[in-house]
């Protein structure tokens, strides 16, 4: 899973229809799991481990999270231990 070209992901606000288009499936799953109440760091760690085979502290995980945060698609809350999918600009 570490051979994904994160730079190739589109640079536009996230929508549900965009989530539907995204590949690979673990990326859709991660963004879906980040809806609802969001993911705690522990839940994110489990998700990365089971769906991506990454440790949270690993380089590919950092690349993934950076790419998503740059696009404002999946961000860490400033107020709580939560990672949340963000829809819209």
């Amino acid at each position, binding site marked *: 899973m570490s051979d994904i070209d994160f730079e190739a992901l589109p640079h536009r606000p996230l929508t*549900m229809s965009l989530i*539907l288009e995204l590949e690979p499936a673990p990326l859709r799953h991660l963004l879906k799991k980040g809806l609802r109440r969001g993911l705690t760091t522990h839940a994110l760690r489990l998700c990365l481990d089971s769906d991506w085979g990454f440790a949270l502290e690993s380089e590919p995980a950092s690349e993934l999270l950076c790419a998503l945060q740059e696009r404002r698609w999946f961000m860490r809350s400033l107020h709580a231990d939560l990672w949340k999918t963000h*829809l*819209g600009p």
Partner: protein
Amino acid sequence: MTQIIAVHSFRGGTGKSNLTANLATSLGLNGKRVAVLDTDLASPGIHVLFDFELDENQKCLNDFLQEACPIKECVHEVTPDVMKALKGQIFLLPASLDSDRIARLLREGYQVEKLNDAIFAIADDMNLDFILIDTHPGINEETLLSAAIADHLVMVMRPDSQDYLGTAVAIEVAQRLDVMNIQLVMNKLPNQFSRDEVRLRMQESYEVSIGSILPLSEDLLTLASGGLAVLEYPNHSWTCGVRDLATVLLESSGD
């Protein structure tokens, strides 16, 4: 933990709102605290089944989505009297029927993420057992979000070729979003159709759970959304089918 149930259909006219209201009532009759959100903002109507009408001072989902109104002010209790002794409660979050407000919502749109946050805010604040989301038919941003955040997706269809095709598309989309616990409901099945044959076709077409097969009913047509069938006709086969679906949802929620 509150269970979120999205009730959806690919096409209009499936009886989705009617099923949503009656399913909510069945859950309430089981002593549950249930909220119903009318997210069919372009063509709202579920409030009619609960005999609820907004007065000019009351707030609705449009006020939350397009104004700064707190979501709690959009919640209205519509618990039928017969349910009160059973400790169940139903709360409705209606949408506006005002044509100008519908037009404004379609013109300006709203941030769908607000809907997500509102659903979980009321789940926590009101200690709800279930939240039912009555969606707009078809596929758009709101319905995709509702399906994605739901613990259960109830897909409603009729025995119609267009419904068979459209439902396949909707289920494919839901599965791509990794939606859990899809329950397929066939509604308005004419008496001359074989239930067993229809069930088999549904199973072969979709490979998802069949939640219920509900008959086309003269009694429901006569009721004409003027009440809740599960209360008006408690022994009707349509009511029994809705009750069975409620039981499936209760059991899969660990109840």
